[in-house]
């Protein structure tokens, strides 16, 4: 079976954006920061369980309270929620407000939450607060259903997990529901939170950078001296609608979610395959899905987290997918500024593509002092590059060999 391509379907557009990130929580503020090359990485309190005396990450400093008209919580009630729930509810509610989406009783609005380790984080945060939830034989409803209930959403609601590609898969599932006509609009994206066990697990896996002497220099994707990623937190959500529905209610599309490609390496649970075939297939599939040629791509936001193996594997996949067009396509990794938002990474990096489409400039890769010759791409080191951007692609790869590519097109 070859999947029908989205270029033959009605366009799906992004009409609302909600964010919470180490670089801020408004689209304009984040776009400014990304194009100015601002790093959100800083030293953090290593806490009781830090492995090293000087720990660093890209934390969210403040989670904005949802608009009063969406969710119906005052600040005290909102701050009483768990951090993970705050981190998801806030951008979902802000996305709804940004889209001016009506949540009336007849509306079929879906919710797809990309979140890879909800249970693990919930048990851990409860345990660290003195709870015993993980030891108890109970099953609580998951966050996506609590969010849907709180917001009065009456459409389908699911949690999807593909590790670091989770929120990209959320967009894929949401778009399939819109294409099928099962929902009138769908809120999709993902988020994650930094936690002691998460940091310890990635540190013990030797996936994290250990450049504690200068945190802002630690995240250096594609650089010869990279030594791992920097943990970040936050994420983002989009309101997605069929273009005709958005037009009918007078909504202004920010961009079209034009193409999606998904594949699996089928090779290793943790390490990306050295064979670029399958990651490249996700990229090629997304381009075909969008009906664009490799030469039409104006920007690639790379997954590139700054791990020695992963960045080389991705460079190979980009070169294989884009072929002769590769050298004319600027590539950058915004993880150099935001850190790695894990479940929220694909959504946040789609926002970086939105920024490129709206501002007509490509965000840079910070700390790319000496590009790795094994990653031969048209890099954008240190400073943003002005460029006409009509089509942007964003790669996301995850544990379990998941590969995903999104193609966003500038709104007509």
């Amino acid at each position, binding site marked *: 079976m070859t999947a029908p391509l989205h270029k033959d379907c009605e366009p799906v557009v992004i009409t609302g954006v909600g964010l919470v990130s180490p670089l801020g929580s408004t689209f304009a503020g984040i776009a400014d920061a990304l194009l100015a090359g601002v790093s959100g990485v800083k030293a953090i309190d290593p806490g009781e369980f830090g492995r090293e005396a000087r720990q660093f990450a890209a934390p969210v400093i403040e989670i904005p309270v949802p608009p009063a008209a969406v969710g119906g919580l005052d600040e005290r009630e909102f701050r009483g929620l768990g951090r993970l729930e705050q981190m998801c509810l806030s951008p979902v509610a802000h996305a709804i407000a940004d889209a001016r989406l009506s949540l009336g009783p007849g509306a079929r609005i879906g919710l797809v939450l990309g979140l890879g380790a909800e249970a693990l984080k919930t048990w851990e945060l409860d345990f660290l607060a003195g709870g015993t939830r*993980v030891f108890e034989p109970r099953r609580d409803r998951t966050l996506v259903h609590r969010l849907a209930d709180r917001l009065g959403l009456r459409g389908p609601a699911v*949690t999807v997990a593909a590790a670091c590609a989770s929120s990209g898969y959320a967009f894929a599932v949401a778009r399939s529901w819109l294409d099928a006509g099962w929902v009138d609009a769908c809120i999709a994206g993902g988020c994650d939170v930094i936690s002691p066990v998460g940091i310890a697990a990635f540190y013990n896996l030797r996936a994290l950078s250990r450049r504690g002497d200068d945190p802002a220099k630690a995240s250096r994707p594609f650089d010869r001296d990279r030594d791992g990623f920097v943990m970040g937190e936050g994420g983002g959500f989009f309101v997605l609608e069929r273009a005709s529905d958005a037009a009918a209610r007078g909504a202004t599309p920010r961009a079209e979610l034009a193409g999606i490609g998904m594949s699996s390496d089928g090779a290793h649970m943790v390490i990306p395959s050295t064979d670029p075939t399958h990651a490249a297939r996700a990229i090629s599939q997304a381009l075909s899905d969008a009906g664009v040629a490799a030469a039409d791509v104006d920007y690639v936001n790379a997954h590139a987290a700054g791990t020695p193996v992963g960045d080389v594997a991705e460079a190979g996949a980009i070169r294989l997918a884009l072929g002769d067009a590769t050298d004319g396509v600027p590539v950058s990794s915004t993880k150099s500024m935001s850190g790695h938002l894990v479940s929220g990474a694909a959504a946040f990096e789609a926002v970086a593509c939105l920024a490129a489409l709206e501002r007509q400039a490509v965000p840079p890769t910070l700390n790319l002092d000496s590009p790795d010759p094994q990653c031969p791409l048209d890099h954008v080191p240190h400073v943003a590059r002005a460029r006409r951007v009509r089509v942007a692609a964003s790669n996301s790869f995850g544990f*379990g060999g998941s590969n995903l590519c999104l193609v966003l097109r500038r709104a007509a």
Partner: protein
Amino acid sequence: MPTRPTTTSSPPVACGIGAHAFVEARLTQIGPLRDRPGPEGSPPLPPRFLRHCDEQTVVGMHAVLAAIASLPAERRVCERHGVVAASCQAGRIVTASSLAKLRPQGAVSISPHIVPQCSLHSVAGAVSVALGMHGPNVGIGGGPDAVAEGLFTAISLVRPGGGADADGVWLVASDWAEEPALDETGAAIGDPVCRALALFVQPAAAEAASLELTIHFPTEPLASPGGGEASDVLGDFARAAAMCAGGGPLASWAVECPWPAEIRLTRRAAWAAPSRPLREAA
């Protein structure tokens, strides 16, 4: 097993089920399955592949292998398959034992395998990697509504235009029959039963499909959408699949979603019941 009246619906969306198997294993039986999952004659996995996996991954893998074994040899190639794995609180035992050690032993005690092997994506990732599947792999649900979420998502990806460039996806739904109580070290009290249902969900036109899944959207809102853990959704659905495929009097079954929709399982009219049992105990 309770029966429910069906609902009036808008045009349904259908997929076929080309193979299925349901597996139950007690915790004490899972150790041997880690070394050699699947029925006799199953393809060997990479050495020690399941060593760090959580229990639902091990039992889920066994269920997929059992379902594959029920297929004729020419249909056992998985390269163009995907995976949608709907687990329920997978990784809880490992997480509990990790947290129990965190204060006395510190962060050095946290296994590097806990995120890749004990998260919501882990069952899907493991099945995809072990069997060399190159279609999409994704975890779904994670809680008491996982079966409905998984069925809904599998159908949405497999239907024409759903975005999965694959011949079909393996839906692996897993849980503990009863959520185990754990002691203060994170060890399970008693010998709980872990179980998994594997369904190969294909486009509706697939000729070899014995059963069909359809999503129905009621024209009137359901009085009380499904969801929660009040009923044994996975166990009932697995038993219904076996009975429908086995040619017995039960020809259809419905799972209510936590939103206004239901997913109906029906036996295809032309399907002849197989001669081998479809339910397999580890």
